């Protein structure tokens, strides 16, 4: 069952990297959405290869964004699918349920926003939701594992 899982030793490093990259991406998204001028000034330092007229959101054609998306996805996958300290049937069941739950919640949340948001903002919405499933899974999985461990201690 643990065929697809990474070793436990990568968990802490990947977790720290994931949280940091998530904070940077969220900051970029907010800066880009609400203070375009400021965002351009901060990010233009990293703009090495092009000047696009159309910049929908965090996915600027800049090395800066791509580097953080790369870190976010790689560290997120490793953190999400690393083995737990105690890897047993309960952990497998929790992982399984969390994955299904995150799939359903992510798509339903997206649908709810898709039918109420129109225009250019839809592209920003899709780019956020393309990354959010992993986040929802990690949060749900961690909370459930934490609860289970507390219950076992009690």
């Amino acid at each position, binding site marked *: 069952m643990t*065929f697809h899982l990474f070793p436990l030793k990568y968990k802490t490093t990947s977790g720290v990297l994931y949280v940091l990259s998530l904070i940077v991406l969220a900051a970029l998204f907010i800066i880009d959405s609400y203070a375009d001028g400021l965002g351009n000034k901060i990010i233009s330092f990293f703009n090495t290869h092009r000047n696009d007229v159309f910049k929908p959101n965090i996915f600027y054609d800049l090395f800066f964004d791509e580097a953080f998306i*790369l870190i976010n996805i790689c560290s997120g996958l490793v953190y*999400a699918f690393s083995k737990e300290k105690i890897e047993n049937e309960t952990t497998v069941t929790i992982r399984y349920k969390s994955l*299904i739950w995150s799939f359903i919640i992510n798509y339903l949340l997206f649908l709810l*926003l898709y039918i109420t948001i129109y225009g250019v903002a839809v592209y920003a919405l899709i780019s956020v939701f393309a990354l959010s499933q992993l986040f929802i899974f990690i949060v749900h999985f961690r909370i459930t594992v934490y609860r289970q461990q507390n219950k076992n201690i009690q």
Partner: protein
Amino acid sequence: MEILFYIRFNFKSIIMKTNYLFPHKFKWISGILFIVSISIMLCWIIEPDIFKDIEIKSKVFAIAETAFMGDNVYFGIIDTNILDELLMATVIISGLVFAFSKEKIEDEMTSKIRLESLVWATYANYLIFLFCVLFIYGMVFLNIIMFAFFTHLLFFILRFNWEIYKFNRTTNEE
């Protein structure tokens, strides 16, 4: 009333036992709806002009409407073509029901295949998405992220059903 009392006093055990799966009877109808709607959606993403003559105009509530040029609307009623919203709702709802419907025989092996397929689909989708982020630029990228959003569900459905088919064939042969 009895049902409400049952839910109230057994809420925790209901949550623990829940497996987030839909009944098997919805599988085929949702499957047909999903295949038809996602085919239309993919054609639309590739060639946006094919539905330019079809419009379903309606007044809808909008949290936000942002335009390239013109006024933005926040928390208001707007008049818009809701064809793509209807299509998106059909793709997502039928896709989720089809993907997470119970199988005819639902046992530990089915759960194992489902879990492995979910993990596999997540790896595959994010790695392909990452490849596109790094090597595709400009307007095409917007289509790619639209694709990537649906391929996650699609990869899972394809992989899961293929593995179930292989497993059933092996069992029958034995």
